[in-house]
């Protein structure tokens, strides 16, 4: 952010934020990104499923980790992207950052849902329960709610600029609130039941597991970026459609 305060950086930022330039640039990036994502994910999957050892405690279920952890990572990364884009949108008033924030939300929400779901499928064989109101799971669930609220707000307000401002405020308040929620939940949970029932931090990761986990993490992130670009392109087109329609109605009124 600090670098953007210098005039040249700001100009460059605005140049890239120009929708026409964005469309031109992103159209060249999308196809290679798809290929790269699929390749990395394919390699990751191979190691995750076939070429990594079972855990000595958790057995084969540890393979769930290779989709669970990257999903959980993206759930936070997605919110980070959304909050950062919202802040940029509020400060610089550039519509492309609103587009970015709006497009990141459904992707982040999907991966948050996936993190919850795969966590549940991991929890049942390991802890004997599909769901436990432990601090970490509860705060991820609340993060999911924040995503849903953000998406609902966008869907409710018709006019894009007004919707973008309101949604940006919500995303930023949420960003400040997440650590507070997290700590309150930890405090709440330890108050009611000892934290010793189970913990997410199992044995430290063996190097043989680090490779598939890293590959999957990179693959998921690449996929996130690709999806973000595609959704942003769709959003830019949606706004073009909106303006064309406004122009059609306006021209009809003149003629």
């Amino acid at each position, binding site marked *: 952010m600090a670098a953007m305060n210098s005039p040249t950086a700001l100009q460059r930022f605005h140049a890239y934020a120009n929708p026409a330039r964005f469309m031109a640039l992103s159209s060249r990036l999308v196809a290679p990104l798809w290929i790269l994502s699929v390749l990395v994910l394919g390699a990751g999957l191979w190691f995750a499923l076939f070429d990594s050892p079972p855990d000595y405690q958790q057995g084969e279920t540890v393979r769930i980790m290779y989709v669970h952890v990257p999903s959980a990572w993206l759930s936070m990364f997605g919110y980070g992207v959304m909050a950062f884009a919202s802040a940029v949108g509020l400060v610089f008033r550039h519509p492309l950052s609103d587009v970015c924030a709006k497009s990141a939300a459904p992707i982040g929400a999907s991966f948050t849902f996936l993190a919850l779901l795969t966590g549940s499928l991991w929890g049942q064989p390991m802890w004997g329960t599909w769901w436990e109101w432990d601090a970490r799971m509860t705060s991820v669930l609340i993060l999911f709610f924040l995503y849903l609220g953000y998406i609902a707000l966008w869907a409710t307000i018709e006019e894009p600029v007004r919707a973008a401002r309101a949604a940006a405020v919500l995303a930023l308040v949420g960003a400040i609130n997440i650590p507070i929620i997290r700590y309150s939940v930890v405090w709440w949970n330890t108050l009611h039941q000892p934290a010793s029932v189970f913990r997410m931090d199992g044995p430290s990761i063996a190097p043989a597991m680090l490779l598939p986990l890293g590959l999957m993490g990179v693959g998921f992130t690449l996929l996130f970026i690709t999806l973000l670009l595609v959704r942003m392109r769709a959003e830019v087109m949606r706004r073009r459609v909106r303006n064309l*329609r406004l122009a059609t*109605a306006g021209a*009809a009124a003149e003629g």
Partner: protein
Amino acid sequence: MTISELSLCARDLACERGGRLVYDGLSFSLKGGEALVLTGPNGAGKSSLLRQLAGLLDVTRGEIALEGGDPERTPGEQAHYAGHLDALKPSMSVVETVIFWRRFLGSIPQGAETALEALGLLHLADLPVAYLSAGQRRRLSLARLIAVPRPIWLLDEPTVALDAASVARLLGLMKGHLGQGGMIVAATHLDLGLEGAKTLRLGAEVAA
């Protein structure tokens, strides 16, 4: 059934709104091909009379009778009522709106082009209603009159938000409707220029 044999009669009609007698002892009769223009100051009951004719407001006293129409249906079900509210949904497109009216009001399966053409909205057919201007919304609302054939038109200030060209277009449609033996009851401040239209001045009855 030829609709020119129709006649709409109101006998000794009264309307009470919120404990206040808006009008009383109001009578008129209208034959197919005739128009009735309601005039009078605000609050004289022009809108109330139209809503009573449409069956949207209870009749305090008196009766409304439609002779020669479909005996199975109330007068309101054989009338179009175009009030101040345009009954449009912003997220539906122009053509979807008209198709819905045709299916719901007239059980007519398809075809909306004639109505849109008549009101000069055909080129906006696929546009969502949210993008329309006030005048375009008004015209779409009035497209109902053409989309579903009904003998009685009840129009409450139909020219509001319309420009001169659209008013002329509406007038043409109204004349066409009368020419086919339909009836029009319209409340308006503007002189519509309908030749041979009867005039009913509201507000005078209560004062007299």
